[in-house]
């Protein structure tokens, strides 16, 4: 027979008091979640089932009509592909560059704060500022990128970076990578401080080269933090909007359109609020499985580590 639990043995009055205390403590959070998450979510689902143009006081109910239209929208595929490119490159590039920089800076002591601050500044810059500054850099006539290329005889490579459909997405992506890498670098550099130096020395003595030491010794030890970084950048790839909107607005001729800008364009430029809302819900639904999977993996690895 199992011993009675503490709550079973507690007097009824005390249990009731505990329950009330629990409710009282949870109530603010519950109210917060209801007002700022559940209510807007329910509202978004409701609006996605209407044909609302932003002004019509009695919009028609169309059920799943907006979602059916989304499934056959020819503009959605290219926008989704751009998101995929963004997710892959926009996650891989800052993680690889940030990790490489963190490994390089790991043992550097002199002026390390300066390096960290310098690399972190782009991350804290507002997207508007980063977008505007990089737009100047990419300016076809006066931007220094084309001037640099021309000055070294690479005139053929000079182009209208943000106005050329072949280069526009990559140009915006480079800006995003520039802005994100500092964050990845700083977080990974901090996590590297916890790596067991003795294990590394042992691996070195066993003849493991640099790449092997990173792969077999360093990465497993920083894996939970590494996965957290991957989750953040990857989920950000689904919802990317601001930097694209500022630098190209999705153009030229939709060449840089991503799901976020397409949703905005429908909702606020074409006044199709419901269609834009349906698209925003789809973006959310697409991102959830990745976030959940990575979160579970991270927790499992953290658990294994603690065992």
């Amino acid at each position: 027979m199992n011993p009675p639990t503490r709550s079973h043995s507690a007097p009824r009055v005390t249990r009731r008091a505990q329950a009330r205390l629990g409710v009282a403590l949870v109530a603010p959070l519950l109210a917060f979640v209801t007002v700022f998450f559940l209510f807007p979510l329910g509202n978004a689902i409701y609006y996605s089932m209407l044909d609302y143009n932003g002004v019509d006081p009695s919009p028609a109910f169309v059920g799943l009509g907006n979602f059916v239209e989304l499934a056959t929208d020819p503009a959605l595929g290219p926008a989704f592909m751009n998101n995929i490119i963004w997710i892959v490159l926009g996650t891989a590039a800052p993680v690889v560059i940030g990790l490489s920089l963190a490994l390089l800076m790991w043992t550097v002591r002199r002026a390390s704060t300066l390096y960290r601050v310098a690399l972190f500044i782009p991350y804290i810059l507002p997207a508007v500022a980063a977008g505007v500054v990089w737009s100047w850099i990419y300016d076809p006539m006066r931007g220094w990128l084309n001037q640099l290329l021309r000055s070294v005889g690479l005139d053929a490579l000079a182009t209208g970076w943000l106005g050329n459909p072949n280069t526009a997405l990559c140009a915006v992506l480079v800006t995003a990578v520039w802005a994100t890498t500092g964050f990845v670098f700083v977080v990974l550099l901090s996590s590297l401080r916890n790596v067991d130096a003795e294990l590394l020395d042992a691996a070195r003595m066993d003849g493991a080269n640099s790449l092997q030491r990173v792969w077999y010794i360093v990465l497993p030890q920083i894996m939970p933090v590494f996965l957290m970084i991957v989750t953040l950048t990857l989920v950000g790839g689904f919802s990317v909007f601001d930097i694209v909107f500022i630098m190209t607005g999705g153009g030229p001729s939709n060449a840089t359109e991503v799901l976020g800008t397409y949703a905005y364009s429908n909702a606020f430029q074409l006044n199709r609020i419901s269609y834009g809302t349906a698209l925003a819900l789809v973006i959310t639904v697409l991102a959830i499985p990745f976030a959940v999977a990575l979160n579970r993996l991270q927790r499992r690895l953290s658990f294994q580590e603690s065992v």
Partner: protein
Amino acid sequence: MTSRHSLAAVAGLGALALLLSGCTPASSTASSGKGDSTLRYLVEQQEDPEFLPMIEARIAKFEERNPGILIEIDAMPFDTMRTVLQTQLQSGDGPDVFNWGSGPTFAGSLADAGLLYDLTESYEKNDWQIYDFAKDRVTVDSKIIGVPGDIETVGVYYNKTMFDDLGIDQPENLGELEAAAANIKQSGVIPFAVSDQEGWQAGHLLSMTLASRVGSQGVADLIDGKASWTSPEVIESLALWAGFNDAGYLPEFPTAISYDGGAALFYSEEAAMLPTGSWFIPEVEANTDFEVGYIPFPSEDGAGIFTAGLGSGPLVSANTDNPEAAIKFIDFLVSEEHGQWAVENLGTIPAFPIETKDLEVLPLLAQVIEDTATFAAGSSDLGTNIDVVASDLFNQTMYDGFQALFTGQKTPEQVAEELEVAARN
């Protein structure tokens, strides 16, 4: 009260305070005195930041003359205004008076939703002398729902000094314009400072070429669905700009050049011509030290006609608490005195007749005032600025289509086909 109840009450109050702090609207910053009516007046952010203080000073005059009415002016970027205006008006927390476009997708859709105050009676009572053609643009279901904005024309600015230096006369037809462009290009200067990064410039490019090619009635027929957007004239107009781009008459990457960037090319004399509207006259005058001319885009057999549109004008919210004060304010805004002030200080042309004889007006503006006055009198023709009257879907298709033309992704025929589909939707 027991301690349990106190705890629950405190928690509940805490939650309530949290909610209220986040959800209650901020109180108005403008304190109104006893019996004062405060009107919130929302305008688009001005091209020139110096204009807003000038408008505020002007509004102070109205407040002086109308004790008891205070105007709280608020400026917002166009894109932001587009996203928040409808919500504000619907929530009843919007501005009392606001400047907004008079086209069907702007004031028209707000009127359809019952968000605009019916000014029909006010027009009669106050005898507002708005031009008939402009009044038509703010008339929905026989109700006048606002005051049309300033009259704006779209044409081509050209560097007269440079033209003279190169021995080029003002182009009198399309052939002469093309010859001038070839000549200018040969001299190492970009003929047209066309920018298309934002996309909306396409509306002006197509409007001006079409107006000169098919006349105002032809453009009206296209907009009204009586003519097809796949007609040869439309395709030729699209092909003209694609051809100019291919011939090197435009900057190398127009889709990578912003509106301001295009203007800068003209100011710095890296480009000889700037296709844009009369709203740019104060900027052009302020930023150039060479002589500037302003002409309509020529047609094949003549000088062509200007394209005209109406800018944003004052509308009154249907939910205003102070309709009488709002109408008094509108009455001030449509007075000849205010129109004259706007011409002299903002370089804008009101949609009502004003005496300009004794005004200090920029030379280019004087020309536009004359053009619009002769048009209003029925003595001349003006084309229509398409994006002011077309649907959002059509406009977006036009913007995307021009970017596709300039980047070689689509042919003029394909763009015309897409325009036709958008127009039919």
